[in-house]
């Protein structure tokens, strides 16, 4: 219980620090939002009036506090580009990215866990290594282009560049996201298989496995009864990181497949220097990353009773 509480506290503190850093960085860099909002109509008096109206003359920490309060009550500021509240812009996009991430995650888990366990017999080491390195070398956007061509244009499984929309056609949207997820998943599957394989092999060489064999377990019983549970902790940690990496992958892959998600919005907003939107997306994604790490820690705590005393 104390472990859980401490982890959640760490999560909150981390988020606070990350959001403060983000806020401060964008506050310094983004210039004067009042001037930006007024654009060509800006006169010194008008800018000054708007600054006072927007509360920009107050100290940064106060504004940070307000922004943070806004973040939790669903008020993320106004986009420079679209002149719309940020939360209205991001809401539907978040859902799309969440779907894409979950589909990718499920895909990675479903494919890599059996493959990792199968490959853990220690045979064909060379082939595994070459295949692994190759898969890790294929960038998601290149796979994405190939998949769009092969499955989209040749096999007509989906129409590249035409995302149906989750609310309009859920089934077709999921098929569309599935192909995007494949290109995110390939390098991560390779990494997960590699990690799982080396974990299981190294666990197999531990002394407790010898004890288990001396008690009359066969190979299968050793693997399922003992080694698997012991391999689970590093695996869960790794999957937590995978969750974070998927978000990164989705930024690029959304662009390849024209999926209207957070990542695509982020890239567009960076190009147009739409700072309120960038800021909000960065904090949302950061929260996602930190949250998946914490979740992995909490799951591990249930698996391994030794954690909690010394765990970081």
């Amino acid at each position, binding site marked *: 219980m104390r472990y859980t509480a401490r982890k959640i506290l760490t999560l909150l503190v981390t988020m606070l620090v990350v959001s403060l850093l983000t806020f401060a960085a964008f506050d310094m860099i983004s210039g004067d939002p009042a001037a930006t909002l007024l654009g060509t109509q800006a006169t010194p008096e008008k800018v000054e009036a708007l600054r006072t109206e927007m509360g920009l003359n107050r100290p940064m920490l106060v504004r940070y506090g307000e922004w943070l309060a806004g973040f939790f009550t669903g008020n993320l500021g106004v986009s420079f580009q679209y002149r719309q509240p940020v939360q209205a812009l991001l809401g539907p996009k978040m859902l799309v990215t969440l779907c894409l991430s979950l589909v990718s995650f499920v895909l990675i888990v479903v494919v890599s866990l059996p493959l990792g366990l199968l490959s853990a017999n220690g045979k064909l080491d060379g082939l595994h290594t070459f295949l692994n390195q190759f898969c890790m070398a294929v960038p998601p956007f290149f796979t994405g282009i190939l998949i769009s061509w092969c499955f989209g244009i040749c096999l007509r499984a989906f129409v590249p560049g035409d995302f149906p929309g989750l609310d309009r056609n859920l089934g077709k949207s999921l098929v569309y996201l599935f192909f995007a997820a494949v290109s995110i998943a390939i390098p991560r599957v390779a990494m997960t298989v590699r990690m799982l394989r080396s974990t299981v092999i190294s666990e197999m060489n*531990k*002394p*407790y496995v*010898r*004890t*288990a*064999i*001396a*008690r*009359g*377990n*066969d190979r299968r*019983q050793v693997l399922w009864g*003992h080694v698997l*549970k*012991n391999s689970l902790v590093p695996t869960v940690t790794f999957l937590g990181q995978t969750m974070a990496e998927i978000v990164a992958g989705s930024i690029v892959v959304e662009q390849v497949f024209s999926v209207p998600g957070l990542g695509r919005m982020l890239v567009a907003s960076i190009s147009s220097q739409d700072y309120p939107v960038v800021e909000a997306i960065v904090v949302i994604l950061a929260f996602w990353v930190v949250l998946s790490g914490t979740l992995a820690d909490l799951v591990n705590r249930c*698996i*391994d*009773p*030794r954690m909690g005393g010394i765990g970081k």
Partner: protein
Amino acid sequence: MLEIQDLHVKFHNRDREAVSGVSLTIQDGEILGLVGESGSGKSVTAMSVAGLLPRKQCDYTGRILLDGQELLHADRSVLREIQGAEIGVVFQEPQSCMDPLMKIGSQVEETLRIHTQMPKEERHQRALAAMAAAELPDPEGICDKYPHELSGGMLQRAMIAAAIVNRPKLLLLDEPTTALDVTIQAQILEMLKKLNRESGVSMLFISHNLNVVRKLCRRVAVMQRGVLVEEGDTDQVFYHPQHPYTQKLIDAIPTRNRKEERP
């Protein structure tokens, strides 16, 4: 009951044979001590008996007979029937030799789960009895603990309990007390003696410490560089060593003890 005939083991990645031509016998209900410095091949001998040799990484010849059944070249499936059922093994470092994520209770019961059709409740009772025989205090409570929650001595007792729960004929003890401090070491030796007296289980006790072996075993065998250099009655070996290596081992025991104990 156990007969090792001319055992040779050579690992592929070593030049020298780990065990070269060892022959030993253990009678029913006997405790045989096997002494030697590290690397003398005593553990490899025990591992061969327990069927734990990494078969692909070594060459082995000879015969190991347990009540007439050949073990060294036996099929893995045959071996599995014997491991845990007829031969129990206790290793040196209990902290790393117990599965860290499995409760003590399940680990003690494991051989029963594998080798018998016993119902759950009976298994539990047998486990409790074995733990009591290994002189673990509060067996019921310890069942629910994980290895990291126990001290080294307690864990070693748990490991002994796990080894004897299925009432094997032979117990292999590979330096079971080396990692423990002296008082606990003495307690465990006493407990093993009692176990041997009461259940009649034969034991092969491996140690580099002649003094420990002397407390427990009537008969002792001394190994050096894979060869059996001396074998015989413990007192005989202790007071009238025939081989210079045995003499060296005896000299390595702190002198004060030896003089005091000498009649």
